[in-house]
């Protein structure tokens, strides 16, 4: 049931640990106030994996369930602290991804799907915390109506000029003795996997292609596109925009990225 903010069952059981719980929670609030890295206890050299490990460790300590038998105000405080911790993790993870640029794609053993049916469905919803929607919705009593005004498109500062035309993206002529370079056929394979949302397999193929031709802007563009597309379907729209724009910066002729960006801006409410 929806309940007013002040409602809730009263904790009749005032445990011995409540004083300590208040102390621990207040302490974490102070750490949170100093910034997300402090809250997670991360060194400046931390990786996204470190951030995740720190968050999981703190989750064991600060999940509201740990305070579930205490006074109602402690439960509320614990909920707030945990929400802030999650936000801290998300912001650290995001900025670390930015700093390190594209995350090096880990080699993943390609797996053969045993049942292809499971993969054709689009992801229905995002697992990431809901984004703050600043779109305004004028309210008509008794039902509110959403405003349909266009959302301003935030322009990104133009990247370094990229020469257009085939010369820019055509891989250098095959060097003698090197592995065969990326062919349009390879691209079709990748795009097909992406269309079917088989992210892991697409990553594997892209990783192999990039090993074959480390200098190819086209492959880096495809990698960015893949990350962008995954983010887009995951409804992490800001991440999606950054990645897709990176993809277009790397290769202005990547038509699929243009299409995806257009879709992103037209579908965005």
């Amino acid at each position: 049931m929806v309940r007013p903010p002040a409602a809730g069952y009263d904790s009749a059981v005032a445990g011995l640990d409540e004083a300590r719980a208040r102390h621990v929670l207040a302490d974490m609030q102070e750490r949170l106030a100093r910034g997300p890295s402090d809250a997670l206890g991360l060194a400046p050299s931390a990786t996204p994996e470190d951030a995740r490990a720190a968050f999981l460790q703190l989750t064991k300590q600060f999940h509201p369930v740990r305070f579930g038998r205490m006074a109602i105000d402690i439960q509320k405080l614990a909920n707030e602290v945990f929400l802030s911790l999650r936000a801290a993790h998300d912001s650290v993870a995001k900025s670390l991804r930015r700093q390190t640029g594209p995350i090096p794609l880990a080699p993943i053993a390609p797996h053969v799907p045993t049942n292809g049916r499971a993969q054709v469905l689009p992801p229905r919803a995002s697992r990431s915390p809901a984004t703050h929607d600043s779109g305004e919705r004028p309210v008509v009593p008794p039902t509110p109506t959403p405003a349909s005004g266009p959302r301003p498109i935030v322009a990104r500062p133009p990247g370094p000029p990229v020469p257009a035309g085939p010369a820019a993206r055509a891989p250098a002529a095959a060097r003698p003795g090197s592995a065969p370079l990326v062919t349009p056929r390879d691209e079709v394979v990748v795009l097909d996997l992406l269309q079917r949302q088989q992210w892991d397999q697409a990553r594997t193929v892209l990783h192999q292609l990039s090993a074959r031709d480390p200098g190819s802007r086209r492959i880096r563009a495809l990698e960015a596109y893949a990350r962008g597309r995954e983010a887009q379907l995951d409804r992490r729209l800001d991440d999606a925009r950054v990645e897709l724009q990176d993809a277009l910066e790397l290769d202005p002729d990547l038509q699929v990225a243009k299409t995806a960006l257009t879709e992103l801006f037209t579908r965005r409410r």
Partner: protein
Amino acid sequence: MGRVIGIDLGTTNSCVAVLEGGEPTVIHNQEGGRTTPSMVSWNADGDVVVGAASKRQMITNPQRTVFGAKRLLGRKMHDREVQALVSRLPYKVVSAKNGDAWVEVAGTPRSPQEISAHVLAKMKRVAEDYLGEPVFEAVVTVPAYFDDVQRQATKDAGAIAGLTVRAILNEPTAAALAYGAQHQHNQRLAVFDLGGGTFDISILAIENGVFEVLATHGDTSLGGDDFDRVIIDLLADEFAAEHGLNLREDTVALQRLKEAAERSKIELSSAMTTDVNLPFIAAGPAGPVHLMRELERGQLERACRPLIDRLDAPCRHALADAHCTPADIDQVLLVGGMSRMPAVQERAVQIFGKPASKGVNPDEIVAMGAAVHSGIMGGELQEVVLLDVTPHDMGVKVAGDRMSVVITANTSIPTRAKKIFATTEDNQTYVAIEIYQGEHELASRNRRLGRFILGDLRPAPRGQTKVEVSFTMDADGILEITAAEIGTGRAASVQIEASSGLTAEEIQRLGQRLGT
């Protein structure tokens, strides 16, 4: 501080467990059973009988014996699921003043919360007898796909039974906790939970002791009862064709059919054929008529095929939402009594491409998981914790009956999301917002949770007063709303009009009547 017990409040059977020395232990009831039928009877002399004793009365006292109350819990009389159920139940379902589905027993309307409270009170007594001390707190499990109203109704049932429900835990998640407490290495689990009344599928990742639910899907009206009904229909239709007698009109005959259906379904999980033997089931023009026939597993499977087909879509949705392929799943856990049916197991293998884990007791693992969760709350288990998700979209009704989603399904909880609303009339001092839960684009097709009114707004020309509304969902999946006027930062008053459930007074009164 007293103990927190773990209760699996099932549609057909319930089970209670406690944590002892860090290990969950299932407790026997007074009759020696490890599970207790979720059935309550009111005798002519006013006595209330719960569990196995009630089940024994089902044939002699069908109108006063209530089973499967969980399927009505937190539901409206006009819900399609309730309407489909009503015609097939031997007891009478009536509408309460607020439209909730209640049960009428011997002329007295009773809420499903009260009926469930009798079952919970019985489980509480079972635990108290075993522990030798009073119990006041519990972790109670619910189907993952239960909505906010159903969860709140479960909490209220606990309150009537004299139990403070410290956490509402999703059944498949509970199963994963119980399994994972013994197999703590990092892995991905799919929990396939087909119980008496509901089907849930959850995909979880265990990472360094943190159990993270990646996605949950399900069907709140698919369970063992539906399989029983298929058999009842098969037998009754055949009987009608042969003898021209409708067994469904006779509540006693229907009750005997139901019992026979459940028994043959269970037998056909191990045997290939079984006998249905119901002498004197009806009276024909030429004297008593008997129902005697052989039922084969193949017949049952053919008849249940449409039900089994309904298992596919939730599984595929859950995998897609979790960004997993079947190959990413390390273990498949089968939970719920219906998962014993070979055809159901085959379907699970077909969907996930691997056999299910052995050594899991599908009737007890959920209660064991609830006990594990009580240990997490109490601090006995420091290295395990659970991050669950909300199973449904949660949003606000906007113009054209559209659903404006604020919190999306499968968002990890606790979570908070905000939206900004503005006035549309000059000097408007309040706005009313209706909250809905569900995936349909039309708000009216979803579950209405309630309406809240934001008042005390500054009078201003239209569009200039803006209010930020914040939805906070706690770890139990229960929603709380706050609002503040933008610019002034002044908290707008939020007044919620509940559209279902019991009031605090009703809960207290029922609690006193139960003697808790």
